[in-house]
Every structure is written in structure tokens, then in C-alpha cells.
């Protein structure tokens, strides 16, 4: 039989039982719809995390203290802090790949000023920091070289600090006290939002590291150094360069291990992506189960339909249908039904992820590949779960089938 005839026969028989066909397809519709929404959320989450990681700064490289190593026993990362401001200076002066280097001396402390007090992270950084983190100033200015050299007590506030200490007014020109040391506010930073791990990046006060070191922390060592390259393709070369400069700066002999760690943004991104991938897989697994249930629903109805239409099968066999004709008819019916269900599911999935995106503010993206995979999967469900009932129909004896009441 021609395939166009087969599809025509199958479609007719599906349309003859509209309600039942719809209920049968419902499993597939929900399954495919769920898969698409889940994948859309997963991919949306991933692109959102990508954005957040980018918001840390472009082409960011983080140099943090390495592990101590005495007699072969490693103390783990950060146990041996030998990063200094001199390292940062050396990197800035000698590197050819790096476009900016800044120490980051973080200390937490009470801030008094404006409407009350607030506890925030105080970051001592260099002027390069603004460029490295790609962070705009929306009011006032960032501190400059002369502020740095003269250890001026100037501060730039993150949005969260500004909102809490000076709600509804411009803090620029006002004064705050950090651990009883008065600082002049010279600028306010643009809002950056949360990091992938949920830390509020705007709950911060930036000040020249020279001032922070002398006035606030008093420590000689630097918790971490941030650097960045002008273009992303330089990152790897820059990391090698940093290692060489740092080893020289620390006077490490050939056999000694690095006493520092150099990581770039993609390392951070991978960790974060790994988490969302696990989430996506989990959601996908749940959605796949509903597809499986949908498939079993199709098989169930096809089996009922074979029994119900035994007489019809008998008539078809009597007037000359071969077993293979009957097999194909029922198989095509189940495939048409599952593909139709899949198509409706795709539409619902589209609508669902759009509505979900609008309602929750999550970003949802649907890739064309998802649609093909969903359609292919529902066709496979149709073949797999349609085969048994179709085979059952095709091996019926015409005489018994005709006599069936």
C-alpha cells in the first residue's frame, strides 16, 4: 500500500475517535511539553549564570595564595599566604599580556554614616580594579593615582551600601566612618547584582588599597590579586606569564611547587555550569518519565483499540489485506498519534516557557534542536509502544476476527 494511503487511513481512524485520541495523546503532550519547558529553564539558567560570571569582569584572572608544603604534607589552598602588594606591582610592570592588575584586600567592618550604620565588605583595590571588573560609576568618580599615592581616605560605595546608609539621596560628598576612620565618599558604583553563588556584589565599599592597608587592615599580605587581559584569547598566555613572574618574585627554585594559584573565569564558569547541568538532567529525567507514561498510555489504548476493532480487522483481512498491511496501519496510527501529540506538546512547551519566563523573570531559551529531539522522541515512542498492539492485530485469524462480537 502507498504510504499516503496509509497515513490517510490512520488519520481517518484517529479523527473518528476524537475524544479518545486526544486523551491518548495527552500523555505525550504533557511529556513533550514538560521536556521543552524543563530544557528551556535549564538553558535559561545556564545563560543567566554565564551573564553573572561575565559580570565579575571581562577576562578576569584570579591569583590567590597557594598551599603550604612542609615535608611533603600539603596544608591545602590558602594556608600559606605570601601574596604581597609588591607581587601586584611586579606583575603590572613586567607583564605584556595583562591590561590591568589590582590587589584585593578585603576586610569586613562596621560603617557609620548617613542614616545609621551598616556592616559591609571593605575592599582595598587599585585604580585598575574598575577596569578589571568592568564596573561603572554612576555618581561622582573612581579614585585615581594621586588618591593612591597620598593614601587619601576616599571611598566609592556599592549600590547596596549607598541605599542603606543614604536612602534616597546622593552620598557623594558625604562622609562615613570605617572603623572610626573618616572617609570621604567620592563615588557610587552601578548595580551589578548577585554572583552565581548568591553573594551581593553591591554590598561593598571600595577604597585605595594603600589606605586600607595602612589605616584598616594593617596586614602585609594580600588575600588575592585580580588581573585581566585585553582580549579573551590572551588569557592562557597571560596565566603562564603570571606564573613565571610570580615564581621569580617569590624566588622559588626549580624543584619547588607554586605557592600560589592562578585561575581564570572559565574555571569558575565550569563549576557553576556543572551545577545547573545536574539540575537540568534531573528535571529532564522527571520529564522523561512522563513521556514514558505517555507511551504506555498509547500502548494501552492501541491494545483496547485492536480488541474493539477485531471485526474491522477481520473485514480488512477477508477482503485481501495482508498481515503486514494491518500491522502498518496500526503502527502508522500510533506514530501519527504520538507525533501529533508531540507537535501539540511543543506548542504548549513554547507557550509554557514563555509564560513561565514572563511570570518569574527567569530567562528561558528554546533551541531548535530541542524541537527535533522532541519530535524524534515522540515518533520513537509511537513505534516502540505501537509495535506490540499492531503485531497482535496483524496475526489475527480472519475467520475468528470476523466472528468476534
Amino acid at each position: 500500500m502507498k504510504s499516503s494511503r496509509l497515513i490517510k487511513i490512520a488519520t481517518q481512524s484517529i479523527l473518528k475517535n476524537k475524544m479518545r485520541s486526544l486523551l491518548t495523546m495527552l500523555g505525550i503532550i504533557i511529556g513533550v511539553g514538560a521536556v521543552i519547558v524543563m530544557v528551556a529553564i535549564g538553558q535559561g539558567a545556564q545563560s543567566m549564570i554565564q551573564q553573572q560570571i561575565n559580570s565579575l569582569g571581562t577576562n578576569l584572572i584570579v591569583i590567590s595564595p597557594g598551599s603550604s608544603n612542609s615535608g611533603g604534607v600539603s596544608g591545602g589552598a590558602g594556608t600559606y599566604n605570601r601574596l604581597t602588594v609588591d607581587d601586584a606591582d611586579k606583575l603590572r610592570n613586567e607583564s605584556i599580556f595583562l591590561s590591568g592588575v589590582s590587589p584585593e584586600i578585603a576586610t569586613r567592618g562596621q560603617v557609620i554614616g548617613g542614616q545609621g550604620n551598616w556592616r559591609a565588605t571593605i575592599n582595598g583595590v587599585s585604580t585598575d580594579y574598575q577596569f578589571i571588573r568592568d564596573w561603572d560609576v554612576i555618581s561622582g568618580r573612581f579614585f585615581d593615582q594621586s588618591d593612591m599615592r597620598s593614601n587619601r581616605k576616599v571611598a566609592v560605595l556599592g549600590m547596596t551600601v549607598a541605599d542603606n546608609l543614604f536612602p534616597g539621596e546622593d552620598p557623594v560628598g558625604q562622609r562615613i566612618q570605617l572603623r572610626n576612620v573618616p572617609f570621604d565618599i567620592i563615588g557610587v558604583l552601578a548595580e551589578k547584582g548577585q554572583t552565581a553563588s548568591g553573594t551581593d556584589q553591591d554590598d561593598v565599599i571600595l577604597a585605595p588599597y594603600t589606605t586600607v592597608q595602612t589605616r584598616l587592615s594593617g596586614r602585609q599580605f594580600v588575600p588575592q590579586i585580580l588581573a585581566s587581559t585585553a582580549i579573551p584569547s590572551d588569557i592562557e598566555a597571560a596565566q603562564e606569564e603570571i606564573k613565571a613572574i610570580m615564581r621569580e618574585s617569590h624566588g622559588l627554585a626549580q624543584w619547588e611547587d607554586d605557592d600560589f594559584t592562578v585561575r581564570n573565569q572559565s574555571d569558575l564558569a565550569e563549576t557553576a555550569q556543572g551545577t545547573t547541568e545536574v539540575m537540568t538532567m534531573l528535571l529532564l529525567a522527571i520529564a522523561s518519565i512522563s513521556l514514558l507514561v505517555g507511551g504506555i498510555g498509547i500502548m494501552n489504548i492501541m491494545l483496547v483499540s485492536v480488541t474493539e476493532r477485531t471485526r474491522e480487522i477481520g473485514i480488512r483481512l477477508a477482503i485481501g489485506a495482508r498481515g503486514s498491511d494491518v500491522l502498518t496501519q496500526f503502527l502508522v496510527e500510533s506514530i501519527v498519534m504520538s507525533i501529533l501529540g508531540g507537535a501539540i506538546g511543543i506548542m504548549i512547551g513554547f507557550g509554557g516557557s514563555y509564560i513561565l519566563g514572563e511570570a518569574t523573570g527567569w530567562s528561558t531559551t528554546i533551541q531548535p534542536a530541542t524541537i527535533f529531539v522532541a519530535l524524534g522522541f515522540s515518533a520513537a515512542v509511537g513505534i516502540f509502544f505501537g509495535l506490540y498492539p499492531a503485531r497482535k492485530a496483524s496475526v489475527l485469524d480472519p475467520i475468528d476476527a470476523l466472528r468476534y462480537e
Partner: protein
Amino acid sequence: MEDQKTAVIRTVGAEKVYDMGKTRVRALAGVDFTVEQGEMVAIMGASGSGKSTLMNILGCLDLPTAGSYFLDGVRVETLSRNQLADIRNQKIGFVFQGFNLLPRTSAVANVELPLLYDRSGEKINTRKLASQALAKVGLGDRLDHEPSELSGGQQQRVAIARALVTDPSLILADEPTGNLDSRTSVEVLALFQELNDQGITIILVTHEEDISKYAKRIVELRDGYIIRDEQVADHRRAAVDLETFTPVAVEVEV
């Protein structure tokens, strides 16, 4: 050999034994039976006489356990399941007691059905052939009616059109008037006689003596044996009977 060529149907010692586990039922006990082209034969017998079994074998729905069956010179019992299906499609037209039309399917689509399974590739314009077959049985104006919208007689005529549409060597009718009132029965018989006049071989299976009187030849079975095989010299003409028919109850056709 000469005989074998012209005979539409020839069975030689056809036997059918059903194995029911402990007991063996011999439904046909070596039947020799020949039907020539253009005959109209009524096969009679009480239930259990073996007429249904013979009918199934003649219709290539079943195979004899012993003996041979030639349809149009083709030895049927050597054929595969698929070849049997093709023979049913091309050489035999079935008409059943219960009409056996597909429900919720238009008359023309029902008639078209056997053509959809045709593998010769010659029957291209299936819809047109189906309409022509329906016109032949006087239902040219009911193409799109579904079985539920047709009377019993009309449904049986759709079934006859479905049997005719493949241009078969043989029409096999199993109790074709069993579900019809007496006037409609005569109408259907008139249609069979008309087709027979055009040269189509027809075999009717019936248990009613009245019906068999319209055939040219009557064959009676009992316990798997043929006990009567006679030509009806002066068989009744249904068309004539219809003119003088006195209805007991008239079926109103919608």
C-alpha cells in the same frame, strides 16, 4: 484438464478436521465439488452440516486439512498467508450476513477498501471505480452516506458493491439475506441474479429453502457430506416476484 480450466471452483476430496484437544471434529468429509463459470449455486444445510467450513475454504479464509482446492485453476492449499490474502483481494468478493461494513465510514470509502489493498497496481482511480460499483447496485446517489444512515437492504447493496469492485471471478455470499425482511431479501436476490446474468459466478450459503429456489443449482450438505446436488430447471426470478410481491410489512426506506 479441460474441465479444470473452465471450472471456477474445484475441490477434490476436500477434508477439514478440527483438532479440539481430546476430540477430533470432522467438519468436511472428502467433498468433491465443482462450480463452472456463470453458475449460481445455493449451498444449503443445517448448522453443523459443514457449510460454513466449506464456505471458509472456498473463500480462501481457511485451508483443507486433506484434499485439494483449485480456484481458477490455482491450487490454493500450497499458497502462503500473503498469497491467500492477494487471492481473496483479486478473485473473490465476500458478502456477509451482518453486512460487515466499516462503521462511521462513507459508502464509497467502504467500497473503495479492497482496492486500497490491491497489489497489481492496475486499479489507480479507486474512488471512481468505487462510485461506479455503487451505481451498479443502484446506490449512485448515496456515495457519502454512512452505514448508520442506510437501511439494511441498502447496506447489503453497499457490501455487494464492495464485493464487485475488484472485478472478481466469484462472489461468495454467506447468508446474505439473513438480516433482511422478506421483500428486501427478494430485492437483494434480484441484484444477485442480475449480476449472474452478466456472467458473474455466485455462491450463496443459506439455510432457507425459499432463498435457494432463486439459484440455478442447489447443493445440500449434512455431516460433512454432500447429500444433494441438483440443477433447478425452473428457478424463480426475483425481479418477477417483486412485481407481484404482497407485503406483510413494508420497510420504509429513508
